[in-house]
């Protein structure tokens, strides 16, 4: 393999890896606030893409994307308020099944609203064949959009958690829910907020990546599994590590096409998930000690 092709594969891997990282961060936000793995996480990405495509028909592109993020954020809040907020101390099994049910309902609703057709936004700059030459490597400007927008979103998110009152309240809740409540923080509102943030960041990812990957009513589930793989790989709850883990999975998947036909691409990433779960469930960046203290 010549080095140019090698870098081409790396760039493709980074594009996908970015989206996996975004999904993983979505998982982490909700997990930190509630201890729940939200199986409907991939659906937020799908909703972001689908809504943006629909809105872009009569709104300028940036407004359409912002609108899609807003709509998905509201849906995130509605999901929490309807299905999660009012339950008291639900068991893990119950929460798993409820979020799976939610993901099915969202997917089926999307099927009835948008049909089975595959959709995409136009490329933000140029067309699908426009490319920027960097050395001997060609990069589509959309790849830069994906990486750039996601990076901004992640930085903004971490600024929010570190420098705003609301963000600190959320972290306090994640660290010790009872103590936070004693300080007058509404834990329930923080959970709702975590669903909104998680939906919002998922929608941003879904909107920027859909010119490249396209979006369909059922594109959420594979993303959820891969995002979860990345979240585990980085150590659950650790969003900085998720970015690195996302790159690893994305690049690994992109190179797997060498070894196996593209139809088995998902088999590779899920086998990796199983492998990590069996060998090192605390993730490659996480500490085993810390993982033992968590609920599962």
């Amino acid at each position: 393999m010549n080095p140019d092709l090698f870098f081409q594969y790396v760039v493709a891997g980074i594009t996908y890896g970015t989206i996996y990282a975004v999904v993983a961060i979505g998982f982490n936000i909700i997990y930190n606030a509630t201890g729940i793995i939200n199986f409907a996480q991939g659906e937020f990405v799908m909703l972001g893409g689908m809504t943006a495509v629909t809105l872009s028909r009569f709104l300028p592109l940036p407004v359409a994307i912002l609108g899609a993020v807003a709509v998905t954020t509201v849906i995130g809040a509605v999901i929490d308020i309807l299905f999660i907020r009012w339950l008291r101390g639900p068991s893990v099994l119950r929460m798993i099944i409820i979020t799976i049910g939610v993901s099915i309902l969202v997917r089926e609703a999307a099927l009835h609203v948008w049909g089975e057709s595959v959709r995409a936004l136009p490329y933000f700059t140029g067309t699908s064949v426009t490319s920027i030459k960097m050395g001997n490597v060609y990069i589509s400007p959309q790849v830069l959009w994906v990486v750039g927008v996601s990076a901004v979103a992640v930085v903004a998110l971490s600024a929010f958690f570190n420098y705003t009152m609301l963000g600190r309240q959320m972290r306090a809740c994640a660290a010790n829910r009872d103590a936070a409540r004693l300080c007058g923080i509404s834990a329930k509102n923080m959970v709702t907020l975590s669903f909104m943030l998680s939906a919002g960041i998922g929608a941003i990812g879904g909107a920027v990546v859909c010119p490249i990957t396209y979006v369909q009513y059922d594109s959420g589930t594979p993303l959820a599994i891969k995002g979860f793989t990345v979240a585990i790989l980085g150590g659950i709850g650790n969003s900085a590590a998720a970015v690195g883990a996302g790159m690893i999975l994305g690049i690994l998947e992109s190179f797997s096409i060498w070894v196996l036909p593209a139809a088995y691409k998902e088999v590779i990433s899920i086998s990796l998930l199983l492998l990590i779960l069996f060998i090192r469930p605390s993730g490659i960046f996480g500490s085993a000690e810390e993982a033992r203290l968590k609920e599962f």
Partner: protein
Amino acid sequence: MRGRYLPVAAFAGLIVAIQMATHFTGSGYHLTQLTMSAYYSLLAIGLCLLVGYAGQISLGHAGFFAIGGYITALLTTHDLSSRAGGASRWLAKAGILSFRIDLYGGELLTVHPWVACLVAVLATVGIAYAVGGPVLKLKGHYLAMATLGFGVIIYRIVLGTEFLGAADGISEVPPFAILPGLEVSGKAALRVPNYYLAWGLVIAGMVLLLNLIHSREGRALSSIHGAEDAAEAMGIPTARYKLSAFALSAAFAGLAGVLLTHYNGGIGPSEASVMKSVRYVAIVAIGGMANLWGTLLMSLLLNYLSLRGYFGTYDDAVFGAILILIMLFAPGGLLRRDLLEEVRDVFRGNGEKAS
């Protein structure tokens, strides 16, 4: 002892009554969907043992169903006659291979369905042991994701593999002649015997599982569900029991896959889809988790309604909605006397009794 078999007799009576009713109203065509729902029920009661009694969730049981179905489909349709050497002639004489005539009058040499069935079920159990070993060490979300991952892997493999028919699946699977004059096939003339065969198997499976859950092993499984560490401390080999329950439920799923594939004459990748796995869990949940009879009755009803197309394009949505509603309002299932009380408890805010 008698108390345990009374419901079995009552259920057998119900099965006969349904057949009589379709006979006298001349609506025998309903039996086709009822037979199919019997095979799905076989899977559901096996899953009930695992999820309800042993407390181990599996979101990958459609994978085991597909493994059974695809193995039997492959073995009974793959023509070996071009390679007919001495060994295959000997195998044919021993009954392992059999000749049959295909649709176009050509002669096919394929594996006999009995052998294919045996291989398929054994392979399913073998895979269940191999996968279950590491997977069942996980708990909660990790277990759910790992089994979901297993299901997706099987789905992707059957969807992406050329000799498994890719998106089309495998068709023209021959009937499975269990006894002379009794074969598992979708022929209209054999509708009634097939209906009884399928439900007879389900009842046999129920008797097996009912005895199991009331035995030492069954109580051990329930104790694992209740508190795994405590069970371990009491000297119960929890890992081994969980694995056995997993393998047994996989065997039920594999057998169901084999028989339904012969009954339908084919199998496609949709049988391995995640949605199917979720659907089976939904049936166990609405049946009341640790409730074999509830699971069986709900499986009979919901599969029948779904196969007859009563849910239309909302088929998957109905199962998703059922799953959510049950888990929100009645985590102990529907078929119970204290249902209303529990719903009230949920609204009062202490509804974590039943799960």
